[in-house]
């Protein structure tokens, strides 16, 4: 049996004497689509950053693909999609093709040029997110939803085994959010890409994922989505910190 893609044991993280994460243990298996839910300040993004090796935990251990994270060399196996508003320079003078090709930088290696097939690779990744028609467009001209699809394509272009997404729907209007999650679900289903996603969209996303983890400094629930869906509003509220009601969205499409 394959090793878990992520295996976290007893992770804690303190920032300026405040405990952001407390004794987290969890596994992400190959093919999982895990949604990490939690209120603001619950440590969701911190947990993702620890998974990515961007910050070191105060305590505990993390293995990626069965290897201690410190010794893990195949970072190109993990695609990362950040919160668009956090890191992207909105006025950057680059085309969609240039941005997506940037996703091949790590895979190509230092001192090496991008592969000769870069154009085909980029086109394939853009097709997977339905954006191949916008190859030559400037990234700054696109809508929030389109930009986020481009960033998914950038994460996909190196053909990762797992995608880690940090609130990828921030800045996307509601109608496009549903279509966006459908696209992620199809990448998980059809291409077998394992997904780990932090999100606030509790009920939109739980229809599409396989697993749910509820985080508020520590893990309050981690299991199949079917188990999560049987939780009462009161049970959810007990860890979320305030009432969480099931909301049924109407409409959708792109």
């Amino acid at each position, binding site marked *: 049996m394959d090793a878990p893609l992520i295996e976290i044991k007893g992770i804690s993280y303190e920032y300026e004497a405040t405990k952001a994460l407390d004794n987290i243990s969890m596994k992400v298996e190959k093919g999982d689509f895990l949604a990490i839910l939690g209120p603001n300040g619950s440590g969701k993004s911190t947990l993702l950053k620890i998974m990515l090796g961007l910050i070191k935990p105060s305590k505990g251990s993390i293995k990626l693909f069965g290897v201690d994270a410190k010794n893990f060399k195949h970072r190109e196996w993990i695609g990362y999609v950040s919160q668009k508003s956090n890191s992207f*320079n909105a006025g950057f003078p680059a085309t969609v093709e240039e941005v997506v090709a940037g996703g091949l930088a790590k895979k190509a290696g230092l001192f090496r040029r*991008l592969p000769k097939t870069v154009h085909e690779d980029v086109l394939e990744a853009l097709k997977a997110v339905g954006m191949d028609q916008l190859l030559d467009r400037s990234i700054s001209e696109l809508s929030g939803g389109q930009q986020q699809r481009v960033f998914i394509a950038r994460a996909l272009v190196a053909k990762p085994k797992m995608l880690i997404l940090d609130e990828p729907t921030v800045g996307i209007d509601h109608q496009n959010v549903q279509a966006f999650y459908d696209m992620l679900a199809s990448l998980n289903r059809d291409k077998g890409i394992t997904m780990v996603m932090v999100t606030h969209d509790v009920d939109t996303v739980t229809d599409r994922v396989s697993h749910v983890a509820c985080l508020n400094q520590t893990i309050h629930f981690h299991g199949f989505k079917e188990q999560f869906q049987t939780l009462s509003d009161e049970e959810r509220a007990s860890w979320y910190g305030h009432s969480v009601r099931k909301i049924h969205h109407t409409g959708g499409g792109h």
Partner: protein
Amino acid sequence: MIDAILTYEFLQNAFGAGLIIGVIAPLLGVFIVVRRLSLIADALSHVTLAGIAGSLYLSQSVAAFATLNPLFLGIAASVGGSVLIERLRTLYKHYEELAIPIILSAGIGFGAIFISLAEGFSNDLFGYLFGSVSAVSREDLLIVGAIALVVLAFIALFFKELFVLSFDDEYAKASGLPAKWIHFMFMIVTALVIAGSMRIVGILLVSSLMTIPVATAMRVSKSFKQTIVLSILFGQASVIAGLVSAFYFDLAPGGTIVVTSILFLLIVLIYKKIAVGMKRGAIA
């Protein structure tokens, strides 16, 4: 003009150095502008001033400095300044921009002390502040050439990493690129370009040659690579026109180069305004 360049070595030096700087300053400037580091270039140029002024002062009293090209101490100060800026940015994580005024004022402060301690190098100093057509030596040209080789090699070797880092530094770190080291090397290379460019453009105007051609190119380019090519073209045209006019009208080339580059910027801005207006008119 061509005859004069072929005849006089000082003109060959000035135009040779100018043409090289016209390429490397806007080339590196593209990354500086998109990474929003334009003010760091200003801070480093003022630190270079301290190094130059220090070298000129020491040349009056210490024999070893009498024959030393002031550019070397300028380069050392600039590189040292870039390292200090990075240290301060780490120290003041939540106020990273504080590093710029601290280093900039330190540069001016030390520069002012050295200038007031020494007397009698006002002509030299004027050349360093605003550039000079006549003061570029063959040694200066060789130093600028060597700096250009370092810059071109750095950009060629790390182009894809620099692009990713410039576009989205969090993504660059998350994808396992050595973002910290590349940024550190970038700062050192920036310091070298600033120190190398100031013989022609002058310390006070060097950052403008790294930013104005880029600002102009960004208004009309459609891709990152096109931005680089157009920035170099605008930079090169500004340097040539600026040097020629400085030679004929006996003006400081830093001034003529920067004013020319601003003229290009104005032309492009007006062109874009007219083009957008015509497009709107056609749609209506």
